[in-house]
């Protein structure tokens, strides 16, 4: 296991040098098609590493418990640091772990190990003269790999915009997290803002009756509640906020519009992990 700890330590050192040399990880530069190319290159790296496993001892090592356990230990330690230090979206070091190279490299290394394990378990399942039922942990490993990689790479393509709608007016402009205005491929008209309160005045329900008109002149009349977003043309529309000074008399409703093209891939990973957990519950740690 010493080798695994050394590799992890080396990655952290490399990360620190990158942090000093090129600065924090710039996730925004991964926007499509860069993230697609990076994903393809990463899959290729995993495949090459697997093919070289008999020739290069490092490639063989990466698929072992002796590699996985230290990688997990490093991930836990760095994530604990993240949990103990207040995170700040403007931060550049430990106060913004998501752009801190050592943190990112350890998670990438973990994904590389996962990739090796997935291929090996997959090949084992099919390598005999007839099909063998794969080890259930293949589901968990593949699910985690898929969810982790696509969530990370897809993040740059995710758009989260706020739209302030006013009763009786058509709105098509939304505000990006950077404060710039973006025109939407649809207009949203707030028909009515609904609010119910508990006896103590705290909100029980707030919702918006809206009329959405898409660019194809399709009209959709719907109600958006907290916890009940509506999807139109690949955009999920959420009830976000309202004029809290006015309360039930609010004339505006703030909606959030979210587009995340990589979501189906992430969800595929999540569902595989869930299925893997069902198998884990049923079969436990039984060794064959």
């Amino acid at each position, binding site marked *: 296991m010493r080798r695994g700890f050394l590799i992890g330590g080396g990655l952290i050192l490399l990360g620190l040098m990158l942090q000093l040399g090129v600065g924090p990880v710039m996730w925004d530069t991964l926007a499509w098609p860069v993230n697609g190319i990076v994903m393809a290159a990463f899959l290729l790296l995993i495949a090459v590493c697997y093919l070289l496993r008999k020739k290069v001892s490092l490639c063989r090592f990466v698929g072992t418990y002796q590699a996985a356990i230290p990688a997990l230990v490093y991930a836990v330690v760095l994530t604990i640091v993240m949990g103990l230090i207040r995170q700040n979206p403007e931060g550049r070091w430990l106060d913004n772990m998501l752009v801190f190279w050592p943190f990112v490299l350890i998670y990438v290394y973990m994904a590389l190990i996962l990739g090796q394990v997935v291929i090996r378990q997959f090949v084992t399942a099919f390598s005999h003269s007839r099909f063998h039922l794969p080890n259930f942990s293949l589901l968990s490993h593949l699910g985690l790999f898929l969810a982790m990689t696509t969530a990370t790479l897809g993040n740059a393509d995710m758009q989260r915009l706020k739209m302030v709608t006013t009763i009786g007016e058509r709105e098509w402009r939304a505000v990006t997290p950077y404060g710039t205005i973006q025109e939407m491929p649809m207009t949203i008209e707030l028909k009515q803002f609904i609010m119910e309160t508990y006896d103590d005045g705290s909100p029980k*329900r707030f919702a918006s009756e809206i009329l959405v008109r898409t660019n194809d002149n399709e009209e959709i009349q719907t109600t958006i509640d907290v916890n009940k977003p509506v999807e139109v043309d690949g955009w999920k529309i959420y009830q976000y906020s309202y004029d809290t000074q006015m309360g039930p008399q609010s004339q505006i409703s703030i909606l959030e519009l979210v587009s995340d093209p990589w979501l189906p891939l992430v969800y595929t990973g999540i569902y595989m992990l869930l299925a893997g957990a069902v198998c884990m519950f049923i079969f436990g740690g039984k060794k064959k």
Partner: protein
Amino acid sequence: MSWEQFIYFAIAAVLLWIVGAWAAWKSKTTVAYVTTALGLLVFLSFIISLWISLERPPLRTMGETRLWYSFFLPLAGIIVYSRWKYKWILSFSTMLALVFICVNLFKPEIHSKTLMPALQSPWFAPHVIVYMFAYAVFGVSTLMAIYLLFKKSPTSTLNAQTSLDNLVYVGLAFMTFGMLFGALWAKEAWGHYWSWDPKETWAAITWFAYLIYIHYRRLPSHKPRLAMWLLIFSFILLQMCWWGINYLPSAQGSSVHTYNMQ
């Protein structure tokens, strides 16, 4: 039904569980099953009537989650007992449940009726209940690890180690359900499935920590005692995720998971 009546249900349930634990020591298996099950039934009837009177699932405050924890501990205990027949497991689970019941009796928190819109979701109950069950199973497995570390000689415990592994697999499966239900819910409620909110960060830490245990145990050259220490350490991390972050300076005001603190 309200918290005022809790003490009667709690006393009845704990008495039944104590009889069950005693019966397990005396190898009276049937008595152990029946009394523990009756105790669970009494306790569950309080939870359900509280649910009805609150007009919402009792899952929001720390006191309410402790209620579920006190319920799931003997449940996890009886499941372990039925599979591996440890005489001591019901005593342990009863003792631990009693601790949580006492906390609820002597340090009651304000239990309000209101449930904010963000929590009104079909995901709410499964997300929290599944997590509480996982925590209970990990609580039992931690006690078992401590017992094996300090009470028994390592040579006679191979079977016990295997059943400890099985417990961790069950706990980890449920923890995975809890975490991913949370992710699917977060997408519906907040627009994103994972935001590295302090609660999520600590949930990931805990999940990885238990992954270390199960992978380490599969390493042929592993040290069993170190594995048990790993379990104890993971359970400490779990406490941080469960309630520790409410007191953690780095998480103050930045977590969307602190509904119970208002």
